[in-house]
């Protein structure tokens, strides 16, 4: 068996920080210390060595949306971004409301072998919002997180039943908070920029109303919930109060909601259209504070590939969504005023806990631990070149923007999936 040596890096994990080499063999970390040896060497000089990143929220599009992304290309993008585990969203065609779809996704991911894909399941059949999906059947197929993401569950009674039924199954229900009646036709955040551009708006209230409803349903039923892509200052307040009351809730925020505002849509560039939309600087700042004080637990990319032809359509018609896997680390380090270990917690071990995979992802780098690791230069400044992204799509909002922090190597199950800045073949 080959022994891989990660040499000369600064190891950071949940237990602390130390200069050390890391030796990997047979899919496990076998030694951590100074002056180690190995058969193949991955240079980590000037870099941080950390547990691989875990994304709670990515759209891999397969089955049904292969022109925008496949599980093979999406996991390559994940590897390029330093991810070793990704929760795949269920809004595929067909939707992941049956065992066969879940098994298909899992099999494709194993064949691609670039990272672990954790398929999520729908809360309702077909994500149509009328009948509960078969939670137990999907749990047997390995699903732990359930969501109708792409939309929220509109019917409060159905949501209550879902939470009651889920109790005791050891699963997490996750909500895309959006009261659909308040956002019909919406193109961007409802505010000053939207009024000026003459397009329908997506009011912050549409997210906060459903969030408030669900927090109260959690209070009523006691079932834990996770809240996807929070985007407003009001949402941060609601979650903060809920946690203070001891409610079993967790929340995530995307890199783009931590760094971009609605003014970008004045260019009418569809690459800035996303659901929930980019909002104001006040919202961005509240989200950063919420992440720093632990109100928000994790950064999740909401990686949403769309082909260039679809994104080039007029703004009201273009589908919402942005790429995120390959730029998450670079955006986080460029925009967050937090210690590096805290940023890594939000990108790695906290989402690993929420996803239920902390036995093998996000864990301390020590002998016996799973070798799911990322090696990155925390100071390197770089610019996204859309043409060289590993994703099949190009809809990144960071074209020409300087990011900070670049992945050099990613190891999944002890194998380099990204090596010296390129996807390993």
């Amino acid at each position, binding site marked *: 068996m080959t022994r891989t040596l990660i040499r000369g890096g600064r190891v950071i994990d949940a237990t602390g920080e130390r200069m050390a080499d890391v030796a990997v063999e047979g899919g496990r970390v076998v030694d951590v210390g100074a002056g180690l040896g190995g058969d193949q060497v991955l240079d980590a000089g000037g870099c941080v060595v950390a547990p691989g990143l875990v994304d709670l929220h990515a759209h891999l599009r397969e089955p049904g949306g292969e022109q925008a992304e496949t599980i093979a290309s999406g996991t390559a993008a994940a590897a390029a971004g330093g991810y070793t585990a990704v929760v795949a969203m269920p809004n595929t065609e067909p939707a992941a409301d049956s065992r066969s779809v879940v098994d298909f996704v899992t099999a494709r991911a194993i064949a691609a072998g670039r990272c672990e894909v954790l398929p999520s399941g729908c809360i309702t059949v077909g994500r149509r919002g009328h009948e509960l999906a078969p939670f137990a059947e999907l749990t047997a197929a390995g699903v732990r997180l359930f969501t109708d993401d792409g939309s929220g569950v509109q019917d409060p009674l159905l949501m209550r039943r879902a939470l009651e039924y889920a109790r005791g199954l050891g699963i997490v229900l996750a909500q895309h908070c959006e009261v659909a009646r308040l956002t019909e036709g919406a193109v961007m955040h409802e*505010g000053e920029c939207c009024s000026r551009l*003459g397009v329908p708006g997506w009011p912050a209230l549409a997210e906060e109303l459903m969030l408030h409803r669900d927090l109260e349903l959690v209070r009523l039923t006691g079932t834990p919930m996770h809240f996807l892509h929070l985007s407003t200052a009001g949402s941060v307040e609601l979650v903060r109060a809920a946690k203070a009351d001891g409610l079993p809730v967790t929340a995530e925020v995307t890199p783009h909601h931590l760094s971009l505002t609605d003014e970008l849509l004045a260019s009418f560039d569809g690459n800035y259209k996303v659901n929930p939309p980019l909002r104001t600087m006040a919202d961005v700042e509240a989200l950063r504070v919420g992440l720093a004080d632990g109100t928000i637990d994790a950064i999740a990319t909401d990686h949403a590939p769309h082909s260039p032809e679809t994104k080039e359509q*007029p703004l009201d018609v273009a589908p919402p969504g942005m790429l995120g896997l390959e730029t998450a680390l670079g955006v986080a380090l460029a925009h967050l005023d937090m210690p590096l270990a805290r940023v890594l917690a939000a990108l790695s071990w906290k989402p690993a806990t929420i996803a239920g995979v902390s036995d093998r992802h996000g864990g301390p780098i020590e002998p016996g631990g799973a070798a799911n690791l990322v090696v990155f230069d925390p100071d390197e400044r770089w610019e996204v070149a859309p043409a060289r992204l590993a994703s099949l799509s190009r809809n990144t909002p960071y074209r020409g923007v300087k990011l900070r922090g670049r992945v050099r190597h990613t190891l999944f199950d002890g194998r380099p999936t990204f090596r010296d800045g390129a996807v390993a073949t």
Partner: protein
Amino acid sequence: MKHLLAIDELDVADIHRLLELTDHMVEVNQRPNPKVPALRGRTVCNLFFEVSTRTRLSFETATRRLSGDVMTFTVSESSVNKGESLRDTVETVAAMGVDAFVIRHRSSGAPWQACRWTTAAVINAGDGWHAHPTQALLDAYTVRTELGRTGGFDGLRLAIVGDVKHSRVARSVGQIFAALGADVVLVAPATLLPVVAEHATSDRLDDIIGDVDVLYLLRMQRERMSEALVPNLHEYTERFGLTAERAARLSDGALVMHPGPMNRGVEITVDPAELPGSVIGHQVANGVAVRMAVLFDLLGSGSVA
């Protein structure tokens, strides 16, 4: 100036220049043979993704009076649904060799996107709810001429009444009058105002009608009733329509304007022909001259990038 997309992309000097150029075009239009060779050899393509006979004819006439050649594409819904995208259409036509596009589209921002796919000049003939700069220019020109205000509109009071939220005309007219120094107030129920308004607002037409110098009425579409924006059109007319009673309270010399076409009995219940302040006919007449000025400024006056 390479394109004319929105009033808020012009500076005041540009606005005055275009209005002064319009004087020349008005003079041309008064001749027995209203034609000058200024844009000979230039081709202007009208890309109308939304039906609009009046504006399209106005642009066609303007181009022909400058001796330019006209190409018109009225893209129906079906050809767009067949998969020919905005980008395809613009690039295909651009490859045929045009000097300018005049684009009207139901989606806000379409003309800005078109600029990315051609080096020709782009004129926005109306995009979604967003902007209609040539309408604003002809409205400003009409007021400038009727009130003799060639130096600007300082102290002039303009009220725009109606469905401002969904009106590209309201946005552009408000912008141009404000840029020229006027005081602008938007009059409508809150459901028909933008969430964040660029100007002062009021929901009581009766309070301000005696104080305005220009009353600008917007078309109130019957479809708005079904979107819970107003309970019914009758109530809209009661609160915001220009009735005979309100018309009588207009001050002497106040102008009444409308971008057309009018929904008689809704936003206006009097016959404009009987309103001494109505300049609605002048607005239409000035449309061709204004569009000639815009075309000449973009293609003929030599101020190219």
